[in-house]
């Protein structure tokens, strides 16, 4: 346990905080970020249960690797990276069956629409119809508040490529949602 703290999570050394405080601080951080990590995983895998499993496993990996997090402010991108890798591992391991996207949207739409407004349910169904390469940067920007540079870094793309994907994502989403696009630029 000493090793966890002696390296200085959040820049705090063993001289300044006790092991108990370090643990509690890390847990509080994970607790605060967990809902958005679950949402992020959900939008990538379309499956609530799988998203929970992936985030659970990611949290354990984060716990074991917390030495590598030197700056608490970097916790969110650090955890997002862990979730993305865990999701990729899961897909690789399970070789998940592919399904018809329209069937999937119908299923997800029904579960999501419960207790929510119709226009949001429609928007959610439309988000699922976006290709993954557009959906992922869109979720990172609009849900997680990532900048273009941060998305580019995470996805190993140039910033102009990210902006192009984000434009196409919203352009397609607006079309899917039946927005008035008479003033929109062409894709």
């Amino acid at each position, binding site marked *: 346990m000493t090793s966890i703290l002696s390296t200085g999570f959040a820049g705090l050394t063993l001289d300044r905080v006790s092991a108990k405080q370090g643990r509690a601080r890390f847990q509080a951080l994970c607790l605060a970020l967990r*809902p958005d990590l679950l949402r992020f995983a959900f939008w990538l895998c379309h499956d609530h249960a799988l998203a929970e499993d992936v985030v659970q496993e990611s949290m354990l990996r984060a*716990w074991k690797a917390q030495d590598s997090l030197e700056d608490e402010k970097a916790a969110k991108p650090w955890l997002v990276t862990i979730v993305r890798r865990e999701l990729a591992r899961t897909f690789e391991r399970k070789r998940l069956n592919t399904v018809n996207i329209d069937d999937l949207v119908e299923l997800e739409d029904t579960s999501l629409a419960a207790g929510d407004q119709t226009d*949001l349910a429609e*928007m959610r169904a439309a988000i699922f119809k976006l290709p993954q390469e557009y959906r992922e940067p869109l979720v990172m920007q*609009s849900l*997680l508040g990532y900048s273009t540079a941060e998305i580019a870094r995470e996805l190993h793309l140039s910033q102009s490529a990210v902006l*192009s994907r984000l434009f196409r994502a*919203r352009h397609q989403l607006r079309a899917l949602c039946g927005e*008035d696009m008479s003033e929109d630029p062409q894709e």
Partner: protein
Amino acid sequence: MMHHEQYRRAVLANPLGNDPELEAHRAHCEECRTFTGGVLAFEHRLVRALRVTTPYSARILPFGSRTAVRHAKGGRWLALAASTAIAFVVAAGIWLTPRSSLAADVVAHMAGEPAAWKGHAALSAGELAPVLKRANMTLDPKAPSVSYANSCDFRGQIVPHLVVQSPRGPVTVMVLIHESVSKASQFDEQGYRGTILPVPQHGSIAVLMKEPGTTAAEIDAIAAQVRSAIVWGSSRSVIER
């Protein structure tokens, strides 16, 4: 000079961007201002759609149990002692410091909704009313103008998330009807300063700012003003999910 098409492509790629070139174009182009308004309204819906409800289990971390399992390989009694100690520390932490975790959750929610801070224009009554109505509340007409309003998932409940414009800058207000607190408590986390105030019969409200240099007294004054501007419906507030 930027063309309309260039501007609109950029806005669709990053609706909340604050590029000076985009702002200059917007300032001189009525059509693109109107276009931007439509894109921002769409973005608002998109953010709400993305914030799907997370299960209550999202608040349960796996650390304690897995740590105990790993220790079991080295000795059953050591594992039992360790897991008991960890459980005690976690339970004591949760029990003894409920306010700090509530503040951390509020701050985390802010971080997940960056669009909230961007706008400065006052919402129309039509835009604001559904959010307030869902919480069985209204705002006194003399309340500061509201530039953002959303019904947000917070700790498994749908609560009003407002941004009001004060002389000191934008102030976020979350009406936490399901979170009762016994007394006011201030917090300073991740660049946000704020306070959580009890509201008898209606839980509490969290008020926070990210303006550097804001004093605790100023936040208290703003929080008191906001609390007094809320007019509650006749029955106790209940928000259906």
